[in-house]
């Protein structure tokens, strides 16, 4: 469904975050992107929905060139790509309900939503989305009154409102404890089983083994590995994480 073709990204300050990265993502995959901090995982995910414009290369979603889409077309494409963030990125002062509803902005009447009016249908859809992540009772709460794990579930509910074909999750569990991490990833796994393709960046290898159907590894902006989690042996690991990472691996796998 997604084809990433020779993508490079150089930031204005000269940092080369991605170097000629290419790979394909098939429908229904749970693709995990791994790599050290600063290896370019966020940059890669953001290039896919063009929160960042790649400097070179192309990205095709179902044969539509995302990288060449003009603004209106881009919004239409983004509508079908949900995104979940490490820092949740909720509007903290708004209610959970408003945060979830705002995932629907690409679909609804632009005028009524501008003055904050939402149809009963949309509200019902929002409650359903919250129900799927188990926090329908929190709809009226302010977003910042929720715990981290709950906020991330609101983030997933917001993405669900987009009726996405693809969800990009940039280290969705990096700010959460291990138990919560599993619960959040299980929601993503569930959605994946229902047919939504997931591209997710992760830090911990045990999580990668548990959830990934396929893995892409980045090092200094270069794709150094593509394959199943099982293929990541000692040598591969050293290649991705460097010599000093040995100890950490023992602890985390």
């Amino acid at each position, binding site marked *: 469904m997604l084809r990433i073709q020779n993508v490079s990204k150089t930031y204005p300050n000269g940092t080369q975050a991605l170097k000629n990265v290419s790979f394909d993502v098939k429908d229904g995959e749970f693709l995990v992107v791994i790599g050290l901090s600063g290896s370019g995982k966020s940059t890669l995910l953001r290039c896919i929905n063009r929160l960042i414009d790649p400097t070179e290369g192309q990205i095709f979603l179902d044969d539509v060139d995302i990288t060449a889409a003009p603004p209106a077309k881009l919004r239409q494409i983004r509508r079908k*790509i949900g995104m979940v963030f490490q820092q949740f990125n*909720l509007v903290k002062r708004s209610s959970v309900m408003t945060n979830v509803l705002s995932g629907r902005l690409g679909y609804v009447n632009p005028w009524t939503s501008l003055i904050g009016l939402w149809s009963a249908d949309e509200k019902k859809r929002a409650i359903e989305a919250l129900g799927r992540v188990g926090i329908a009772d929190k709809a009226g709460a302010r977003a910042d009154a929720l715990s981290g794990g709950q906020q991330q579930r609101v983030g997933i509910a917001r993405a669900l409102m*987009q009726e996405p074909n693809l969800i990009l999750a940039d280290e969705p569990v990096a700010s959460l404890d291990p138990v919560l991490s599993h619960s959040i990833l299980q929601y993503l796994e569930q959605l994946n089983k229902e047919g939504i393709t997931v591209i997710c960046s992760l830090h911990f290898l045990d999580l990668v083994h548990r959830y990934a159907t396929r893995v892409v590894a980045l090092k200094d902006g270069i794709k150094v590995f593509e394959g199943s989690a099982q293929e990541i042996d000692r040598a591969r690991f050293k290649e991705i994480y460097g010599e000093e990472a040995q100890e950490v691996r023992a602890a985390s796998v």
Partner: protein
Amino acid sequence: MKTSRLFRNALITTLVIAAFVVSYNVTDADFGKLFRNLPNGQKLITDFLTPDVVTRDVETRTVSIAFPVPCDSAPAEADLPDNGPRLVPSVNCANPLEKFTLEGFDLEPDSEVVIRWKLPDERTMTAIRTNTDAEGYFTFEVEARPIIASANGVASRLEVDTLTPVGKFKPSPTLKEVLDAMFVTIFMALLSTTIATFIAAPLSFLAASNITRRGLIGSAVYYLMRFIFNVLRAYDPLSMALLFAFWLTFGPFPGAMALTVVTIASLGKLFSEAVENIDPGPVEALQATGASPIHVVRYGVLPQVVPDFISYIVYHWDINVRISTIIGFVGGGGIGYLLNLYINDFKWNQAGTAIWAIVIVVWAMDFLSAEVRKRLT
């Protein structure tokens, strides 16, 4: 190296002293005056401390006697009563320029006394004002001036009014005048703050780098807005008010307009900084959903900045009440203008009332804006 530093320090010291001497001379500094003029100040301060805020109804009672000048020009008061409210002159007639003592007995106690002559042709001439004591007694030396001479056998009469405050205290006319003017000032400030908010709020987004500064046109708009805000902010409200006064003539309206312009610039800057300080995360998240830019602002930016905006608005209203007081002083209407009138007429009690009103309102606004800001964070 050492000598050059010594030289530099000596130079700086000399310059500082020179600057001090110059400023001492141009401001005509005379600190002794502060003490020499203390008696003047005392009267002023007493008046300011007893502002004119309440009055009571006054009951007037009049007693009078005939008093021929010169003697024999007309019949004197026949028989003076020896009880009840009464006037007792030391002589029952007098020749011109003679002085005599006038006493009053059993009048209204603790009242203001107005002693006057009622001439045969019905004209009256106030001689003096004094007060009765707790027993209703007063005494005063009166001069029989030639003008009060009898005419055609009719004597002038000595009339004494006692003015006694009765009934409840009620707001004085000055207080009403001051409150009306205060009302004008507060609403002049509110009007200009409101108009300025409606103009500054949308413009502030254009002057926020995280919203506007994209591409060539965006950058141009951003720098233009910044430039406009900065230029407008460079004018102080007072000169702006004078500018508008020449255009729109004096009164509250040009004052409010001047205040509006200054407030647009100031709020525009504060607002745009609030917009620049938002958490960019939610904005990105909304962009990622495919929302249009205006919806990103509505759902991602607005909720983050509205509390800040409100606290800046209240804060600026507070500031504008102070500024409009000063603008009023130069003819902009409201309490400042009234205060200026009182001062020009040497009505120190009334000026005291106006100043107290300003102090109380400024304090209240300050308190209110602090409370609002506390609640919003």
